[in-house]
């Protein structure tokens, strides 16, 4: 299999076959990010298609200063942001950042889920309950490791706004995953860190 950098150079030179190979190698990862940002399969598919159209148009501008995956994630984030903004205007009102999401389904109750699932699944579920604006920032920063300035640029907000959203999102996640917090006592994990029990 050819290296992604070679494929990028070939695609820049006009090779459609090389570009198709890039799509084949990266579309699952792109879809995963799009799905995490939109929380919906159909919306994620639309975002992926728009992303690759933009990548195709802009590939010659990719200079290789950052990794290709980072560049691709930025474009995906930008497309998802545009898509969610458009959808918010056309279909539903976006949730304000401070709204409280109440899920009455017992299967979604974190205490119940703690018995049947691991923290990864619980986090995945908890992410879906966040308002899109908060979810985008925490996904891009804490899962995909994008720097604050890149996140701010792609979401069209200031860096300080991105940080505020990140801290709010983390707080919401913690409150959802550990609703009892320290009310019932403290114990220590094997790695020496304290935790609520």
């Amino acid at each position, binding site marked *: 299999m050819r290296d992604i950098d070679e494929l990028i150079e070939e695609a820049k030179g006009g090779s459609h076959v090389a570009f198709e190979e890039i799509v084949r190698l990266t579309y699952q990862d792109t879809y995963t990010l799009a799905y995490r940002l939109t929380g919906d399969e159909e919306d994620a598919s639309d975002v*992926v298609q728009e992303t690759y159209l933009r990548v195709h148009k802009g590939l010659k501008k990719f200079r290789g200063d950052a990794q290709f995956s980072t560049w691709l994630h930025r474009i995906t984030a930008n497309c998802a942001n545009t898509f969610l903004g458009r959808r918010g205007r056309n279909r539903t009102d976006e949730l304000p950042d401070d709204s409280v999401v109440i899920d009455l389904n017992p299967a979604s109750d974190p205490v119940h889920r703690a018995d049947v699932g691991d923290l990864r699944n619980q986090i995945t579920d908890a992410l879906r309950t966040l308002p899109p604006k908060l979810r985008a920032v925490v996904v891009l920063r804490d899962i995909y490791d994008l720097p604050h300035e890149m996140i701010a640029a792609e979401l069209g907000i200031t860096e300080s706004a991105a940080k505020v959203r990140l801290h709010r999102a983390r707080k919401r996640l*913690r409150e959802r995953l550990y609703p009892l917090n*320290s009310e019932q006592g*403290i114990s220590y994990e094997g790695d020496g860190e304290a935790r*609520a029990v």
Partner: protein
Amino acid sequence: MLSEPMQCDDVGTLLAASADDASLLSPPAATHVTSCLRCQAEQAQYRRILRTMKTLRTETVVVQPELLGDVLDLLRPPAEVVKFRRPAEDRRRAAIGGIAAAATGAAAGALVIASKIAGGRRLAS
């Protein structure tokens, strides 16, 4: 003059911010955390969530099977799209040609039959 010691509520927001960067915790806040089990627990929870979120990076969700084809179709160069569509156009043209030929044949046949009938009537009279 000594400043007021920090309370848990004051430290709460800083703990979310400092989950991946301990330097964001101010010295008074850090002092509070070292002596407060509740804040230590909260800090540990943030770190645990963050560690687990990092592991999600390598996880991919199940993709709809038609997505790759849809994306590749969208990106196919116009020349290839024309080439791809040509067989269908050829089939359509062949079908139209066949119908036209059949109609012409039928009309010719009808003329022959009509002329034979007319010829027979003339002979009989």
